């Protein structure tokens, strides 16, 4: 039986996979990809909740579609953020010829 929990667990798993990538990869672009996976997981969770709350339609604002709306905003903003982040990665690549975050450590201590 596929219950809400199935989706939530799926979301949590994917979130943590993305997290693992974000914490372990050295390539800045790969980190960005991992972050996108994390955001995706958040979206899955949100939409799952939204679906679960659909049966309570009318009980409050937005007929419990809020989760879906939220997901849309997240997708939008994530895209914008990705654009800015990629621009920055390219900018640093121009200067340092590397996008290995292990080497992007001029500033420390």
């Amino acid at each position, binding site marked *: 039986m596929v219950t809400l929990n199935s989706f*939530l667990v799926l979301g949590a798993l994917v979130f943590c996979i993305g997290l693992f990538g974000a914490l372990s990869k050295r390539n800045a672009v790969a980190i960005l990809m991992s972050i996108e996976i994390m955001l995706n997981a958040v979206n899955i969770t949100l939409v799952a909740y939204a679906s679960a709350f659909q049966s309570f339609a009318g009980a409050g604002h937005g007929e419990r579609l809020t989760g879906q709306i939220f997901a849309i905003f997240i997708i939008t903003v994530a895209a914008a*953020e990705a654009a800015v982040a990629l621009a920055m990665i390219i900018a640093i690549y121009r200067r340092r010829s590397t996008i290995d975050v292990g080497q992007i450590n*001029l500033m420390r201590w």
Partner: protein
Amino acid sequence: MTSTIGLPQIWLLSPELSVVLLSFLVLGLDLVTRRKAVTWATAFIGLIIPLALTFSLAFNTFGSRPTTAFYGMLVVDTYAIFFKLLFLLIGFTVILVSYQFVEKYLRATPGEYYSIILMSLAGMMLIGSSGELITIYISFELTSIPLYILAGLSRSDTRSAEAAVKYVLLGAMSSAILLYGMTLLYGATGTTDLVEIAKATTSVLHTGNLLLIVGEVFIFAGFGFKVSAVPFHMWAPDIYEGAPTPSTLFFSVGSKAAGFAALLRIFVFGGLVALNSSYLWVMVAVVAALTMIVGNVGALLQTNIKRMMAYSSIGQAGYLLVGFASLIIHNTTAGDQAMLVFLFVYIVTNIGAFTGIIALGDATGRENIRDFDGFGRRSPWIAAGMAVCFLALAGIPPMAGFLSKLVIFWVAWGQGSGMTILVIIGLLMSAVSIGYYANVVWRMYVVEPEKRDYVQTPVSVGLTMAVAVAGVIALTIVFGPLMAQVGIGANSLFGALVH
């Protein structure tokens, strides 16, 4: 709650709206004129409009107004107005102090620069008056993305680009954890409206609800990143150091204030502190203690003044978190009020401190603590103002910094035995903090400079410093009325709970 959108609702939104429109205008000026002064003046003078509109909101100049608009997503209570004013103050000073920097060091055109700042400012102002999670998130991103950009704006400085990359990637991660937290909150309560969340937490849910707790922890982590609370603080030193100095000033005051504005809005207005307060208290208290310790201790051996200021701002966040902890433990407005006052004073003093750093940085391009040797003679007035602000940050009387810190600790002590340990840690860390704050004063006044030339500072920087110092002194004198006024704002935050 009105169901339509009309003039009153637009009025409530008007400060933010006007800031956004101003940013468009400034952006457009690039096409029309190449004179930087024009752009600068437009941005600066234009900010008077949102300021006026905010005051009209504060004093209800157009008749009695609703407190919410856009279906509860925009909440214009006293708390929101307080933060709007605070952010406008930040906006004024940051723009004022940026003039010379824009001339000399900027990668972007002035129009782009000021419009980015203004958009971020609009985001900050919206955070303070958002009554709903989605709005908060979006406002939060509106605040953050310009900050990422600002970090990377320095021409020919590799460190600036590095700071930008670090900031954007870490910021995105913190967004992710924040969103996950919001999602869990949504899952637990079924709504993103803070008032509804407050109702759900007070009526339906029970203490010990893990969904709620994990959601709260993640939200705290997300905003903890913004306010640079330990262990989410690690970005701060690098980004402060790498970013151009006016941007750093903007991070250190704007970003932090926005983070706290959102944190308080969600936790207090959203009624989260009503449940689980004892567990949340543990969380916040531990983080507060760590933040104070790491911030103040870490600053001691820094050589770069901006990096030192980053640690300083971490330490200051720790004091604020002490206020937050005392707010949570007994769910009283006292902690809230103390935090707002502290934030206010912190912002004014930090502006002054950074203005001094900018003055030297603009003139010489140097930003090591060592470079401040003999600054007291090379630029007596700026140095004096800077010294006053540093000492206020350190909490040395009679400046308002002492009083605000006193209030934070006073309130915390009043909350009971657990908090006293936190207060003692805080007091000891204040004593430690003098080690690096006074060090700057020491270098400015005691150490002989390598060369005795006079450091030229433009009027704008001098003016900013004058405003900051006057502010610090004025805040000291009117501290009582200030507390009372801020108290109204703090109380308004608790409004949702009584519904």
